[in-house]
């Protein structure tokens, strides 16, 4: 309640309170996410550098054109990946709703929204598992690239190496996010946060989950659209 009355003349750095007005754990989560964005940034910049240094590159619309149950000659670029994107945005919304319910200390709602978020996470991982399997059956893997460059010339394995490394690293983040959310759900149901008197832990888990969605915005654009 103090923040509303805190004026300009308040000395944040006089000690006795957090100068950033956040608790320690949340501040550290922000700094972790900042460092993590450097990791993803380095990956994506390396991808861009190699792509800029290549004379040819496979056309994503010819690589990613299938969805589960589609025939061999289906040509539906961007369809499946837009579903994956929608799932992740949706799970981000349910996560922020869980955080919001946590502010109101509404245990039941927090649990419900967390469950939906976990479900969204699993749905996304399922989609990615299908896509990897599908590409693997087409002969794509680390060190193997069946897709020619967009102008028909022979391609290198750079495309698949970067694709599997970066989407794999992102998928690993989604997986850890789901695990964290499951732990949060269990703690919520056990009443741990109720006893503590606040649901700040949900906020930290939420930051991580939104970051996963944020990274997907970049991965999705760099691999499927550009």
């Amino acid at each position, binding site marked *: *309640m*103090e*923040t*509303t009355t805190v004026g300009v003349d308040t000395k*944040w750095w006089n000690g006795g*309170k*957090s*100068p*950033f*007005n*956040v*608790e*320690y754990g949340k501040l550290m989560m922000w*700094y972790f996410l*900042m460092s993590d*964005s*450097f990791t993803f*940034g*380095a990956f994506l*910049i*390396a991808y*861009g*550098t*190699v*792509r*800029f*240094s290549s*004379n040819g590159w496979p056309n994503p619309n*010819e690589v990613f054109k299938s969805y589960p149950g589609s025939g061999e000659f289906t040509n539906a*670029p*961007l369809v499946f990946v*837009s579903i994956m*994107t*929608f799932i992740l*945005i949706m799970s*981000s*919304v349910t*996560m*922020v709703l869980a955080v*919001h319910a946590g502010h109101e200390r509404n245990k039941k709602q927090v649990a419900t929204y967390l469950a939906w978020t976990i479900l969204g996470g699993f749905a996304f991982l399922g989609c990615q598992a299908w896509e990897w399997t599908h590409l693997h059956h087409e002969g794509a893997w680390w060190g193997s690239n*069946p*897709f*020619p*460059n967009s102008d*028909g*010339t*022979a391609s290198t394995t750079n495309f698949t190496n970067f694709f599997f490394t970066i989407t794999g690293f992102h998928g690993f983040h989604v997986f850890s996010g789901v695990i964290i959310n499951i732990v949060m759900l269990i703690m919520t149901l056990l009443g741990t946060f109720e006893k*503590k008197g606040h649901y*700040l832990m949900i906020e930290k888990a*939420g*930051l991580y989950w*939104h970051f996963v*969605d*944020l990274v997907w*915005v*970049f991965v999705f*654009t760099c691999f*499927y*659209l*550009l």
Partner: protein
Amino acid sequence: MEHSTAYVADPVHDSAGGTKEIWRTFWILLGLTIVELVLGYIMIGVESHGGRLALKGAIIILMLAKAFYIVAYFMHLKGEIRNLVMTILVPLALLIWAIISFLYEGNSYRNNRNTYDAYHRERSHIMSTDKKADEKGLPEKKRTGAME
């Protein structure tokens, strides 16, 4: 956790808009994604280099807008104290330098190799012998590796 309440005046930064603002952000993100996808579909039919570049630029701007909405509203960074925001965002400016310099470097490496490395230059004209190239119906003689 006992100490945290003593240090933090108000650790809960709920946005003023509540759930209404959450759903507003959702619709904005959804709208931006749909525009991105439409541009992606338009790009399939565009052959000219300049046209493709313009569409890619538009997609990147939309991507950054999406990133802003996620960080500002879902992660509530907009509601944090300015000093905190700066300690997170200012270091990320390094990435701007990295993007510019590394992409420039990659492009320069390609140009240098195409100019001075005849072997590399000829290799990149070899047509794919993959069956996917057959499906495209590329003429047989184009796959001999001859220079165009």
